[in-house]
């Protein structure tokens, strides 16, 4: 389902060229929960951005569902992000003046889902991640960190993506809440048959995923 072939990402830093991701290749089959670990600056987030079509690789191929996203034009990348990818961020990145329900609906709006159908699905998703109906109309500021991340997970699942990319999804949460969020993701990867690629520092979490990739200086070391 996800195939990464000889992907490189280089940045210019003054006169020097820095390789954030250096000739990485791997593949992940559908429905697997994969973790990427590594120290700060090892290229984890850059790799995640490349997988999510938030950035273009300098060379190499990233094939998702038989499409090379590195060769897509800007409009195709926008469609790819809206329909095939779900993002979960460390800081949740919910829209502060929208309610929990609206934050989930907004992803469906960008994918062209009709409003009525979007409301129904958003409610079900919030319920499925443990956000009860009385909290649907609350704004992010009125929700706890764990609740906000649950809303973010519901948003990531909104368009039934093939791939969910999570950047330190438990990084801002206490260990107990972090474990609950991890368990939720794990359950979803099974129930929704969604491939999840999560960047994490937490080795205890990484140890429970189906596969773990370790990055060092932009290279995959195991």
């Amino acid at each position, binding site marked *: 389902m996800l195939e990464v072939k000889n992907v490189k990402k280089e940045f210019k830093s003054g006169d020097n060229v820095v390789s954030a991701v250096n000739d990485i290749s791997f593949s992940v089959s559908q429905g697997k929960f994969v973790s990427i670990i590594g120290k700060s600056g090892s290229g984890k987030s850059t790799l995640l951005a490349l997988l999510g079509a938030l950035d273009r690789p300098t060379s190499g191929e990233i094939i998702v569902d038989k499409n090379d996203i590195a060769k897509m034009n800007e409009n195709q990348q926008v469609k790819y*992000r809206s329909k095939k990818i779900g993002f979960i961020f460390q800081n949740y990145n919910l829209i502060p003046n929208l309610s929990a329900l609206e934050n989930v609906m907004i992803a469906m709006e960008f994918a062209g889902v009709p409003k009525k159908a979007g409301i129904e699905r958003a409610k079900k998703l919030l319920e499925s991640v443990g956000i009860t109906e009385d909290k649907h109309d609350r704004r992010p500021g009125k929700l706890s960190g764990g609740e906000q991340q649950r809303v973010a997970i519901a948003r990531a699942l909104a368009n039934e993506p093939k791939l969910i990319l999570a950047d330190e999804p438990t990084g801002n949460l206490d260990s107990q809440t972090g474990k609950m969020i991890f368990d939720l993701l794990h359950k979803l990867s099974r129930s929704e048959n969604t491939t999840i690629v999560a960047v994490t520092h937490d080795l205890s979490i990484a140890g429970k995923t189906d596969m773990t990739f370790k990055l060092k200086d932009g290279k995959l070391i195991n």
Partner: protein
Amino acid sequence: MGVINRGIRNAFRNMTRTGSIVFILAISISLALVMLLSMKAVQLKIESVKSSIGNTITVSPAGVRGFEGGGELITEDNIATISNIAHVSGIVETLSDRLTPETDTDLEASLEMGSFGKRMQEKDSAASSDSSSSSVDVPVADSTRPEPKMSINVTGTNDTSNTNALGVTSLSITSGELFSGNEDTNIAILGTELATKNGLTVGSTFTAYDTTITVIGIYDSGNTFTNSSIIMPIKTLQTLSDQAGLVSSVIVESDSMDNIATVQSDLETNLGDAVDVVSSQDTVSETIEPLENIKTITFYSLIGSLVAGSIIIFLTMLMIVRERRREIGALKAIGASNTTVILQFITESLTLTFLASIVGIIGGFAFSNPVLNALVSSSTTSSVTQPGGSGGMPGGGGELMAKAVGSAQGMQNTLNDLQTIIGFDVIIYGILAAFVIAVIGSSIPAFFISKIRPAEVMRSE
């Protein structure tokens, strides 16, 4: 919940900031609207003044003003010369004279002498005595001198439809009829006050220049001086007053506004120093100079207000875009296109400017006339000069003086009458100004939005 809805809601995310921006922007829009309304009012007035004065040039004998001064009247030869000048499309001739009751006419003047008339008459008499016997002291007010009498003005014209030549703004016949102007018969039309004073109606006769003259009409010009006068065909007056072929003023009409300067120049060249040539353009220029100044001020102020408004919204939107950089990245990451995000921010900008335009329009309504009056006031203080002294003689100074006074008064009235016209179009202008400000002010922030890459936002996490 669509992109427009989100844009509108975003405008109210921070009420304190929204209130402040709306207030500042409203001042700018209000000022722009005030300037636009003032400019429009001034432009309308300029056009009105230009159309009311027309394409005319006044030729009058050099050194003569009304019944004062000295020199030679305009002759038939002069008029023939004027007729042959290129671009002259019409000529209106007038001749003025004064009748002394009991001596020259059996009519009784309807104007009261008053203290002003008496003083001027006494001055004339004293001056006359001084010149005849300069070595003898003659008291100014001699009790043996006969009581001075008001004279009656007579104007001869070949075109009664040209009220400008008669020194009035309008002339309506209350009974009887007008003469065409080319008659050489002993007929006249009388002002309402003179006719009433002497009990004359249409068909009545009176004596002047030892001739019986028939009243064919009674007119009302709207002013007391002219309503106490007589108007008759110019040929009749020339014959009766022994001034055959002479006229005291000629109104020359140019075939277009563009040719006035050429005609004026040709008149001055061909007629020489014997006449004074004043074009309506000279009068218009003098009259509209303060208006043109106000127009220039309002135009630049309008541009300045729009620029200020655009800068306010530009800085506001720039600040908002920088502040929501991460949010924009997140929107793009979850599938929003550049167009969607830009549209959302432009809607927010339009909402802010729309709110400001509502307040601005109310401000525009409230302040347009006071601001225009202040501009007029400052402009007239520096530009308008009042005519020096009364300059008249008992009972006024004839048509030229009437025109001079009328012109000065008209100029003052022109400026005092300025009022902005506030209508439905003002609301349209206000909203249009807001739209222009929002679009101009949002264009650069929109460009910045398009350049924000979601990957950059991830790196800053």
